[in-house]
């Protein structure tokens, strides 16, 4: 009798990379539903278009690299990148914006670096930043949230939305508008209270701007689900949200005309929750240890606030995440966990004495 020789352990938990990716996809559903409810069909179209592009690109590149296509595409990682990018892009953006962003994400930011697991930067955010810089007008045109639509105007229907996306047809007036972070950026000279009163975005909202608060709450819900499922630990998101809240509280300046906005607004506006639970938790490009991920999250929180408050762009999650990606290896070097039986934490490059 001859038996197979296999290394231990022989038992494996049932969770595979594809399961992890599927769970992440599932967790985006509440946020995506909120987006669709508040901003119409645009986001769904974004996500679908990005997904198709991503899978096609991934398959093509994997094929070019002479690897097994079925094996790699079935890990769902390209889909996750595409869905996150589709969510991040403005609804009803022209189709070519989405395709260019996705192709850049998958081909340049991911596959050219060696594919899943080898990319130093978050692919979705690389794609996002590329189109943000290249096509600023298309990228800063957001759909008006449901509550603020003028009387008698509604979000374009599915067919009409497709039409807008693919033929460049300009949507009816009043369907596009500023985001809460935009209006804060462009309302210097006004007290925060004044902004809240004058801008219907805030007047109609409960906490942080009509529509946006629901979207953020949706992503928060999905994120909590992922933490409960132990897909990632609390360290990154808590680090980022904590730093963002702390910074905005410190610079709140009791609502003066130079105040960058309240903690609640910062936490529930823009891409905060999407970033905290879906972008910076991308394990490939983040720091490694729990302590490292906490620091990494804090760094992103700080950068998000700094760019939002004093930078040129109204929102900053993409830039903050990319900058923190640069810093991840450096953070790793200083955040080795203390191993059992050792007295000191050390730097990764140091050898223990004796």
């Amino acid at each position: 009798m001859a038996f197979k020789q296999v290394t231990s352990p022989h038992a494996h938990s049932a969770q595979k990379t594809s399961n992890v990716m599927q769970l992440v996809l599932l967790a985006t559903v509440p946020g995506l539903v909120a987006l669709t409810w508040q901003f119409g069909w645009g986001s769904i179209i974004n996500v679908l278009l990005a997904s198709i592009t991503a899978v096609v690109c991934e398959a093509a590149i994997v094929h070019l690299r002479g690897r097994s296509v079925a094996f790699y595409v079935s890990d769902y990682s390209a889909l996750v990148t595409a869905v996150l990018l589709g969510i991040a892009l403005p609804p009803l953006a022209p189709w070519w914006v989405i395709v260019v962003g996705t192709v850049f994400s998958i081909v340049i930011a991911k596959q050219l670096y060696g594919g899943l697991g080898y990319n130093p930067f978050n692919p979705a955010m690389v794609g996002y930043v590329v189109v943000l810089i290249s096509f600023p007008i298309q990228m800063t045109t957001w759909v008006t949230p449901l509550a603020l639509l003028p009387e008698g105007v509604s979000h374009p229907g599915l067919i009409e939305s497709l039409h807008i996306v693919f033929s460049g047809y300009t949507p009816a007036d009043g369907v596009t508008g500023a985001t809460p972070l935009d209006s804060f950026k462009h309302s210097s000279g006004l007290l925060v209270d004044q902004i809240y009163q004058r801008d219907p975005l805030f007047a109609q909202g409960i906490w942080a701007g009509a529509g946006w608060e629901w979207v953020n709450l949706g992503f928060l819900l999905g994120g909590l689900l992922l933490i409960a499922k132990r897909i990632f630990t609390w360290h990154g998101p808590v680090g980022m949200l904590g730093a963002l809240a702390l910074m905005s509280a410190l610079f709140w300046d009791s609502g003066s005309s130079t105040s960058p906005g309240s903690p609640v607004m910062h936490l529930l506006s823009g891409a905060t929750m999407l970033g905290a639970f879906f972008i910076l938790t991308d394990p490939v490009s983040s720091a490694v240890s729990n302590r490292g991920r906490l620091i990494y999250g804090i760094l992103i929180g700080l950068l998000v606030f700094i760019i939002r408050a004093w930078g040129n762009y109204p929102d900053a999650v993409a830039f903050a995440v990319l900058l923190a990606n640069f810093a991840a290896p450096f953070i790793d070097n200083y955040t080795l966990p203390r191993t059992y039986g050792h007295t000191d934490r050390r730097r990764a490059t140091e050898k223990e004495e004796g």
Partner: protein
Amino acid sequence: MSQTWVTPGGVHPPENKHQSLTQSIGVLPLPEKLVVPLNQHIGAPAIPCVEVGQKVLKGEVIAKAAGTVSIPMHAPSSGVVSAIEHRPIAHASGMLAPCIEITTDGEDRWIAHEGVDDYEHLAPRKLLEIIANAGISGMGGAGFPSAVKLNPGRQRPILTLIVNATECEPYITADDSAIRERAAEIVEGIKILSAILDHPDNIFIGIEDNKPEAIEALAPHVEGTGISVVSFPTKYPSGGEKQLIYILTGKEIPSGKLPADLGMVCINIGTTYAIKRAVVNGEPLISRVTTVTGDAVGVQRNYETLIGTPVSHLLAHSAFDEKACSRVIMGGPMMGFTLPSADVPIVKTTNCILAPSYAEIPDDEPAQPCIRCGMCAEACPVSLLPQQLFWYSQAQDHERLEAHNLFDCIECGACSYVCPSNIPLVQYYRASKSEIRKARAEKVKSDHARERFEFHKLRMEQAEREKEEKRTARREAALQASAAPSNPSSSVPSSSAADIIAAAQARAAAKQATPEQQQAQLERTIAAAEQRLIVAEQKLAEAIEKGSANQSVLSAAVENTRQKLEQAKAKLAELTA
């Protein structure tokens, strides 16, 4: 109930322990052949002290301990030694190792043996001797000779004795069933240990809370003995020595140190039973409880198995279905290793034979790329960063691996267990560890070679120099000798009369020394030549007797030797005259 601490990391694989606990510990029919490997423990292999064909009785010593860190082997049953040769053994490599094979005679007749009841009054040294002679090594893990472990030296008094009944690996129930059925004897074994260690302050039996029956079985026996049974939440790997010590005491064994350095000793509970049998009953370690489990065997239960029983014998009596079996594992599903064949024997550390079906342990999926999800770091019980170790293993970056404390990895497999990309992490660590060890050994070897080479060079240079010096000395001497008679005054034109006298005296002294030496040398030459002559003459005589072809050569040699001898004798006469 004493306090317990919680280790970081850990995993909760399905326990699968109930299958083998439905029946009590069974006994198998005597196998036809028993194969006892000589190296079942950490340390030097035992040295056989029997011969092929020799009759042995059950419990008779068949191999002696080779030094202190070694243990003797005993015949597990009576019979005839039928082979002492290399056989496949329980090792992941599937390599052969020296074994003693005994063909059993079916009588199972014991050698005369006697135990001591009054162990309390025996000197610890004497008790340790009994344990060493009984061939007891740790029965839970690596198999370290118990007598060595229990004798840490006087400078390290043992204050805490920890008995490891954790049995955290899934499927294995050998300790659990042994405690249920033999609690009294186990506790007596612990009392013996306590006597050896001069009654430590704390004696803990550490046990996971998934064994309530075992805890209950121990309870009446430990009452009033000072032994506390400490149960703690089930988590793999709580049974690692370092992990258990932390759970029970909150102390960490510093890297590179032993528990004894902190005044602790950790002993497997199966070993305490063996110690009781050795001391009180006088029986050496020749059998142990082994779990046979997995869905590919029809009967899943524990057996009191003789050491040396081939695995095939166990499987044959457990309704083994080879076709349904995905692999045969010695040990548990987390740290056990696959057996190359069923011919390998059960050894002193074999707590389990696991024959899982494909449904239980399917073939491994191909590994996907690491996405650095960090689940492995969450699971690691010693707070390493497994994925970093994995990257550096791939890159063979030994320096970084050591900086990331690769050598603190206990190879528990928790990281591989949770890895969603199915990467065989532990194999990377094992391979890297041995690569680093090899590199270290090679470094030592090459340093040593460099030293030897440099010494060799030095020696050659020195020899050369000496030769050169001699040559110049001789040349000068010759020069002087040729110059002196022709022009004695000019060679030392400015020398005073005293100098000339001194030089003459020195020359005379040198001449006086040489004849003596020459004489001695000549005498030696003569003696040797005489010897050679005798030998040569004998050879010649033989050759003549046999009518050999080389008579002429030999006679020439004899003549030659004789001439040389005569020359030497003549010289000697000349010298002494």
